[in-house]
């Protein structure tokens, strides 16, 4: 959808795209408010809400004490009682303190009450390594939430999707875990000025290719695209797919792609064991794509260790572009 602005496509960073979504939505809907640690005058640890308290005031851009269980619970309660809260957990790691309210309350209230209540809340949080912040500030815990029916899990990889998915998440009548990535915050891309939504549960084929299907999430999407450029020079064409919403998952485009390529690689940053990649592999194995496979389905994911502080160790703990290139090349060449 080309949006011409002074003759050029307007570019925003991922952070700016998120801020624009929140700002436009708060102007349009009084029920929406923000709640979290240091989101007011500080502007959020990563600057997502910078300047918003000046426009909307301290009630709607509400700084909290350091109380992650309380933040999650306040979102649940406000949502059940008619508001549309957007909470921020400063680092995804700290959502471990919010788990009871999310897993046992937010996710289950609608079902337990016979479908008579809704919990329209969004909880935003940045995950991921790469900043040297070590083991307690670098987690990628998205699959914990994928395992909980009743929660939706969204992971945008571009500024365009960040804005559109956040607006869709706020409109959604279910609790949505919205996982951002620290290394994506400064990335730039085209973002239309108007309010638009990117529907939840719509997997996107972001690059067409005939040789290998690469399913990637979050920061791994740009890395997979870069790997695809490298391999294209060798005549290997990757088809890169971004689920965008991890749960409920739209797996049809993945199955269709694997039927075409016969080869699949799943790439994510979270540790491999028990990660989202296992779910994708299982969906492929259970589907009609199984008969079309020419090679084992591969997973490239974080090592099964906490994120180390040392720069070199940290770098080698999660998949990098060169790892994707190697793995996809070997798949394409039939080396597995």
């Amino acid at each position, binding site marked *: 959808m080309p949006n011409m602005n002074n003759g050029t496509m307007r570019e925003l960073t991922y952070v700016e795209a998120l801020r624009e979504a929140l700002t436009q939505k708060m102007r349009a809907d009084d029920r929406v408010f923000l709640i979290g640690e240091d989101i007011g*005058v500080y502007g959020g640890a990563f600057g997502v809400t910078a300047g918003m308290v000046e426009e909307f005031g301290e009630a709607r851009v509400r700084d909290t004490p350091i109380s992650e269980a309380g933040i999650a619970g306040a979102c649940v309660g406000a949502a059940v009682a008619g508001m549309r809260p957007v909470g921020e957990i400063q680092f995804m790691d700290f959502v471990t303190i919010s788990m009871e309210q999310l897993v046992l309350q937010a996710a289950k209230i609608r079902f337990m009450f016979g479908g008579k209540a809704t919990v329209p809340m969004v909880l935003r949080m940045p995950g991921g390594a790469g900043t040297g912040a070590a083991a307690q500030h670098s987690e990628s815990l998205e699959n914990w939430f994928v395992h909980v029916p009743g929660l939706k899990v969204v992971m945008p990889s571009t500024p365009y999707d960040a804005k559109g998915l956040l607006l869709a998440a706020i409109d959604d009548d279910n609790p949505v875990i919205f996982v951002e990535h620290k290394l994506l915050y400064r990335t730039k891309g085209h973002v239309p000025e108007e309010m638009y939504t990117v529907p939840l549960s719509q997997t996107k084929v972001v690059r067409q290719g005939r040789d290998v299907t690469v399913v990637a999430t979050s920061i791994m999407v740009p890395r997979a695209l870069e790997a695809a450029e490298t391999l294209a020079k060798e005549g290997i064409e990757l088809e890169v797919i971004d689920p965008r919403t991890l749960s409920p998952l739209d797996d049809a485009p993945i199955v269709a792609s694997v039927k075409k390529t016969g080869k699949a690689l799943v790439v994510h940053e979270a540790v491999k064991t028990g990660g989202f990649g296992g779910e994708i592999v299982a969906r492929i194995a259970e589907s009609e794509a199984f008969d079309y496979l020419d090679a084992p389905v591969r997973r490239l994911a974080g090592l099964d260790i906490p994120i180390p502080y*040392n720069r070199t160790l940290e770098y080698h703990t999660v998949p990098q572009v060169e790892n994707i290139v190697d793995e996809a090349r070997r798949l394409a060449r039939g080396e597995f």
Partner: protein
Amino acid sequence: MVDTMAQTSVAEIGGERGRTLLRQMMTIRRFEEKAQDLYSLGLVHGTMHLSIGQEGTAVGASAALTRNDYLLNTHRGHGHCLAWGSTPDRMMAEFMGKETGYCRGRGGSMHIADVEANNLGANGIVAGGVPIAVGVGLSIQFRQTDQVVMVVFGDGATNEGAFHESLNMASIWKLPIIYLCENNQYAMSMSVERAFNIERISQRGCAYGIPGVTVDGNDVAAVYEAVKEAKARAQAGEGPTLIECLTYRWRGHSKSDRQAYRTREEVREWQDRDPIPRFASWLSLTDEQVGALWKEAEGLIETAVSFAQASPEPDLSTILEGVYA
């Protein structure tokens, strides 16, 4: 605030011991400044939380305990580590992610532990160490030793649920815990005025049947006295104490803080209450003596940086080590 320095026994923390403690404070100050420089030069990465301005609390508290006791530290914990006796060499090496660091370069600033010296580590999670103190206290009780555990945390940590659960358990089981709250007036951008509807954080002890005291955290002797008393209480089987130390962090919360939530005047006012010259004057030291101690402290930091720079990086082949015992 009452100046308790005058009332404290000079015999305990005056004289030669006092000079050692003062040099510790100076070492902490220079250590933090150097850490920040190295960060700016790109030699240290990640994030770090400096305790400049809070040296009086760290040094006063550790002085009242032995290395047979236990320490659970905060994210703003370099000062407590040094006061507990950790070497700046291995701390600096940890900052640079070196194999010779306290955590073999795996933990970094927020996770420095010196387990052999019963320093059970700093914590990247606000209030993360507070419930752990209950378990350490239980262990001491089961083993019937005369040890105590001191858990250090900020004002912000007392608004986590874990803080409240910990205090209550410690109280009903009379555990030998010293809860040391460093109230430096802010949790990141959240001032204590905005985060609390009570006068003093020490009042929270009352809800759990625990004595709560507030002291001037920039007064080494006041902190020392309070911790000494809490230790005696714990060893007598009377249970935990909550100590609130009023102090101030001079620098931003971490590397990326514009400090829009406070004024320069406020920072300057607190800088006038610098705990280091204050303790020096309590010790009645001459300018020459003070200058010599600064030189010693600076020498320790120079040595630490050289040690860290000369140390090897972890070997990449060891990347999977250390997850399981």
